């Protein structure tokens, strides 16, 4: 097979992949608004995505706030602007670090599990079994997971922000000696609801991205353990990249 033929076949394969992606995307959007609404399964997924991620979000949120306070203090102390550390930590957490890092942590934990779960179902013919029993796999598998991520990623983001600011306060006041009054006052004076809401809008988008990509990669996994492993890896990498890329465009749009 010559290089031109190989290149042509590669183009066709990419177009086919893109076509399949859009077919699944439109089917997902269709089933989002059509019954049956699997309330119990959605709550089960919310427990897994949300409640199950509390520990990892607690650790990453707290330590992110702590290191941010530390780094900001060392930079601001040269300008006698230590009193602005509180506002800097709060603004950074609510606008950027909260939604992005929450999205990445949920991708690593729940997104990888979604891809592996659906990939295993694919290679053991459980997805075929759903279809033979006249149950649409998109409606049964995708919608509860995506709904769960859409609801819980913003909730986790709020929790991440709270712990990050608390961690920053702990380091700033107790370790770096910033007076508590100016620390808190700067947060109150320089942050407003828009900083929180724009971060939550971003987290909704990130929840949609990571859950859809993870479900799609698992749904289209290749054969065997190799196929499931590849699908899981691609789900995490692609979700992470799309979160970071979309973060730029969402920031540009929202601010």
């Amino acid at each position, binding site marked *: 097979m010559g290089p031109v033929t190989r290149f042509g076949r590669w183009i066709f394969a990419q177009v086919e992949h893109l076509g399949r992606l859009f077919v699944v995307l439109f089917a997902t959007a269709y089933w989002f608004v059509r019954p049956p609404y699997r309330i119990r399964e959605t709550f089960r997924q919310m427990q897994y995505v949300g409640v199950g991620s509390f520990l990892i979000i607690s650790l990453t949120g707290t330590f992110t706030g702590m290191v941010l306070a530390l780094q900001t203090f060392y930079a601001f102390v040269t300008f006698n602007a230590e009193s602005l550390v509180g506002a800097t930590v709060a603004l950074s957490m609510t606008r950027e670090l909260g939604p992005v890092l929450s999205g990445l942590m949920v991708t690593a934990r729940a997104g990888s599990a979604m891809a592996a779960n659906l990939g295993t179902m694919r290679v053991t*013919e459980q997805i075929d*079994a759903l*279809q033979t029993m006249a149950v649409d796999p998109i409606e049964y598998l995708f919608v509860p997971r995506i709904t769960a991520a859409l609801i819980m990623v913003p909730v986790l983001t709020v929790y991440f922000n709270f712990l990050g600011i608390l961690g920053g306060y702990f380091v700033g006041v107790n370790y770096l000696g910033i007076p508590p009054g100016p620390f808190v006052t700067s947060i109150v004076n320089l942050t407003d609801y828009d900083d929180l809401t724009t971060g939550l809008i971003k987290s909704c988008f990130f929840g949609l991205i990571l859950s859809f990509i993870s479900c799609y990669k698992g749904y289209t996994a290749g054969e065997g353990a190799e196929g499931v492993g590849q699908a899981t890896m691609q789900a995490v990498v692609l979700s992470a990249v799309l979160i970071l890329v979309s973060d730029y465009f969402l920031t540009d749009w929202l601010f």
Partner: protein
Amino acid sequence: MIQVLDIHKQFGEQKVLDGVSLNIPRGEILVIIGGSGTGKTVLLKHLIGLLRPDKGHIFVEGVDICHLRSWELKETRKKFGMLFQGAALFDSLTVAENVAFPMREHTRFKEKEIMDRVQDHLADVGLYGIEDKHPSELSGGMRKRVGLARALALEPEIVLFDEPTTGLDPIMSDVINELILNTQRKLGITFFIISHDVKGAFKMAHRIAMLYQGRIVEEGTPEEIQSSGNPILQQFLTGSSDGPIQAG
């Protein structure tokens, strides 16, 4: 009940089905035999619309399923039950939840009636007291029997079997074959079985057909198949490496 007319299917460069035609009358057990990789599972997946042929037609009760839209195909699929090669039980559900699944999806039975029916279906396949177990806790034979109970849950008109005895020891294979035979006699529904278990095929089938290189090379009653002079068929039945069928 089902008519397969000249179906062709290709994956990339590989032609898997090359003009397959079959008639499956109501109430019959038809067994398709053939070596590994001859397209038996591909043929079976066409009957329930998991795959669509590149060319040809498949009529289920007079309706060509190759041109149905997805929601129309869903209604047709309710007439079918299917037992997959690995049983394809849902890992996250218990045995009872697996067997109850089709009833919860497609009927308005109350929960108590569903559970009563689950116990009846499990009893029909010789399983008792395992309702709360998960598929990972079951042996291969038990998983197949739960899979069969689930396939029969909606009292379908036709049941498809994808190599029901593959991976089982000879005794369990015969248990499954007996179960299939007794179930068909009791319910009178159509069974379409793909298998390379020749002994099981002769035990169960009303008719046997052999698939080789994407085509049906011989079809008939077990007696007709046994006495056929077709060299491809005879090599497969005797299990000889010497003959027109080349391994690999």
